[in-house]
């Protein structure tokens, strides 16, 4: 199988690259294990300081609305973090004193939403809080398997019965100006969060839960849908295992499922993630890139990989694949000229491109631009 570009990794970086290239008329394939860091996405693009029209356009065409406002957002344990760009259902407040009286609503028996922590955090800001639990028959154990009061299970149910939940909440509301609800709405039906906001007579704030993140999963699904609509080939449940590289050029890659049907391309994008996503792997002796054996920037002495204090920044989080100015990674000291490394695979080796979601998007755009530029260049030649 031959594509213009083969993208390894279906997380935020891989999807942004895939969609952008398809939009430019390139044929691409995305190889995805099916899970990505988007499943743990907070909904806020912390390191994208400026609103970029390119980002907004890409997301809005995929049906994902973003909003830009400098301020703070409410964290699941009741603290506040600076934010500027976020998914539409993640509120950004000018100051933490966003309410006078707030009603926090949780589901009976749901432990992945931290209502008491939220209340304590808000009361520190002078916001009066009341916590109430609602009990819906659809969330009874007969309806849901034992021990399965987890975000996705509840969100699936809520897609069906959110109106009933709203009725219950309406009964609980007294003179509160704000209602805080767990972020378990709008998994499949993306209109639900805004419809809840319209249906309640108070401001509605959705606060995060323990992962997986419902807005994150939704974002992932919408990006994938958009990519497929543009004609991209999404290889779900597969992963690249090795590559054929000669003279600093990748010719094809081998995947787990496709066996001898190599994926060929003019260019390749490696967006397999960091240590958590297994884009990088480690053993007691080294940190390595498992698909191609690319050069990785890390400290040799494993005792320097960590900081003994959990709360401190950890050195291992900075480790990543080494790249040249055009994001071409190195293999045994030599750059691979039709390969691009993007996203958290880079660690903090390219701080100018940001971190987290910002790094994913910035590096994806940079790689796409470079691919288009060199294709243009080839044509002119």
């Amino acid at each position: 199988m031959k594509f213009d570009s083969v993208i390894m990794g279906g997380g935020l970086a891989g999807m942004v690259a895939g969609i952008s290239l398809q939009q430019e008329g390139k044929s691409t394939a995305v190889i995805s294990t099916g899970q990505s860091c988007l499943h743990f996405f907070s909904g806020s693009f912390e390191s994208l300081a400026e609103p970029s029209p390119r980002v907004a356009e890409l997301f809005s065409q995929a049906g994902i609305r973003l909003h830009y406002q400098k301020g703070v957002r409410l964290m699941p344990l009741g603290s506040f973090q600076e934010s500027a760009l976020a998914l539409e259902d993640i509120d950004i407040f000018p100051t933490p004193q966003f309410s006078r009286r707030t009603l926090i609503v949780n589901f009976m028996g749901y432990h992945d939403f931290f209502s008491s922590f939220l209340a304590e955090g808000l009361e520190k800001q002078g916001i009066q809080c009341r916590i109430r639990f609602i009990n819906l028959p659809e969330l009874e154990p007969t309806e849901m398997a034992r021990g399965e009061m987890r975000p996705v299970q509840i969100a699936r149910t809520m897609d069906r019965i959110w109106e009933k939940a709203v009725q219950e909440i309406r009964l609980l509301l007294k003179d509160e100006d704000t209602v805080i609800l767990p972020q378990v709405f709008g998994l499949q039906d993306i209109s639900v969060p805004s419809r809840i906001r319209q249906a309640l007579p108070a401001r509605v704030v959705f606060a995060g839960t323990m992962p997986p993140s419902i807005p994150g999963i939704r974002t992932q699904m919408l990006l994938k849908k958009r990519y497929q609509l543009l004609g991209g080939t999404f290889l779900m449940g597969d992963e690249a295992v090795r590559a054929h590289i000669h003279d600093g050029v990748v010719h094809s890659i081998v995947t787990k499922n496709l066996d001898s049907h190599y994926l060929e391309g003019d260019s390749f994008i490696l967006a397999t993630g960091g240590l958590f996503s297994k884009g990088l792997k480690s053993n007691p002796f080294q940190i390595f890139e498992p698909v191609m054996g690319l050069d990785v920037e890390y400290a040799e002495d494993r005792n320097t990989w960590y900081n003994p204090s959990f709360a401190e920044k950890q050195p291992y989080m900075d480790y990543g694949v080494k790249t040249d100015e055009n994001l071409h990674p190195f293999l045994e000291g030599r750059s691979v000229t039709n390969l691009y490394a993007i996203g958290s695979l880079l660690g903090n080796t390219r701080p100018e491109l940001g971190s987290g979601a910002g790094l994913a998007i910035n590096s994806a755009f940079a790689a796409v631009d470079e691919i288009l530029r060199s294709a243009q260049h080839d044509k002119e030649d």
Partner: protein
Amino acid sequence: MNPNEFDVIIIGGGITGAGTQRDCAMRGLRTLLIERSDIATGATGRNHGLLHSGARYAVNDPESAEECIRENMILRTIAAHCIDETEGLFITLPEDDLAYQQNFVESCRKAGIGAEIIDPDLARRLEPSVNPELIGAVKVPDGSVDPFRLCAANMLDAKLHGGQVRLHTEVTGFIREGDTIKGVHTRNRQTGEEADFYAPVTVNACGIWGQHMAELAGVRIGMFPAKGALLIFAHRVNNMVINRCRKPSNADILVPGDTVCVIGTTSTRIPFEECDHVAVTPDEVDLLITEGAKLAPSLSSTRILRAYAGVRPLVSADDDPSGRNISRGIVCLDHESRDGLKGFVTITGGKLMTYRLMAEIATDTVCRKLGVDKPCTTATTPLPGSEERSYEAVAQKIWEAPSTAQKAAASRMGTRASRIRTGDRRDDALICECEEVSVGEINAAIERMDVSTLTDLRRRTRVGMGTCQGEFCACRAAGLLAKAHGCVERERKDLADFLQERWKGNFPIGWGDTLREAEYTQWVYKHVLGL
């Protein structure tokens, strides 16, 4: 009666202190146990969790071997819910001397340990994880014991017999009148509250910290801190304990326990200042992995969950200040006859396996001082929860058709599992998926077992001991603790402390899946939850 007056004060909430309190309380004494941290935080909770058959000591220390096998048989009956009767193997590898085996088996038999030479083929079938290269195998009655559970059950029984327990409370000094210890000054380390307690006898059961406690009372004991490092693997690779059949050495015991297995240990003299902060070094980690893989080769590719270390309370003989003549046996010092200090007894040395015997000896001494003439019954009276031998039978009795989570609860709590509130979603919801711990079980622990922090809760319920190392359950359990204690602010700090404590055992083995998990945990708590 002054509520601060007791017959005996026991300092130290390890297994020796807990066992001594139980024995004293069962003989009718009014007891108070004081622990500066939580239960089982010293050597008690930092060892293999091996129910020694005594075979390991048979050749070099027949006295200890005999003590072990006697206590082994007693614990099987009185502490059934803390024990897994796995049996054990002593294997000879090609690099070991097979001639040692004969001497070993004879020594075992002399000590009363049922040791049976079996064909290496049979050993491979009994324990498929064992190194297939083995050239000899001996089967012995080893097992595994959960020291946290054992400690908690002893303390619970003491309380059921009227005992009082003060955790997170430090002894800051002794109340001394002339040549007699009359009581202790204490300070609660969480609230800062100070209090004095009085008793005609005080027992020093502080393990390696016993030397310091004795100094505080004005007497001297020569102790030698010996650090032992261990690794916990994320899977129960073996079902039987696997030992090397050779002179005891580093990293030659692999013990299965609950869902995991533990390899250890090493032995290094350390200075006293390090006892509170023992760290596992990379060299120790490497040695444990290399030697461990010789017992069970699959260990070299099994994920390691944690590295930890404990400090053995070794005591030097009184006539040997150099420490060359160190005993691993039980040491009970009546400071009245030894040093002329009345009302003070030290119980130390020994090992987890012989805690009950140590408690009996200490209690005999206390009773003699108080003029109490009551026999010890701890060898025949089951601990609370251990009235039935099989946890499956217990679960069946309580729930008829128990779920796996209910079976897990019964295996942890024994017959006391019947006290777990169950039957609706609020109580049955799982907090810890790795170890299958429900809200009901956690609340039962909070209500009855002196839990003030998440780490305390872990020692009593195994919350956060599984493969995720508390990543998901810590936050949920923190919610329950915040509710129980009515203080979110304290719980927020507690959560941070818990994560730091977990990380301490993770970073020395931070590679592979451990590093993945760590990256994820760090990211979730910092960026997603905003702790």
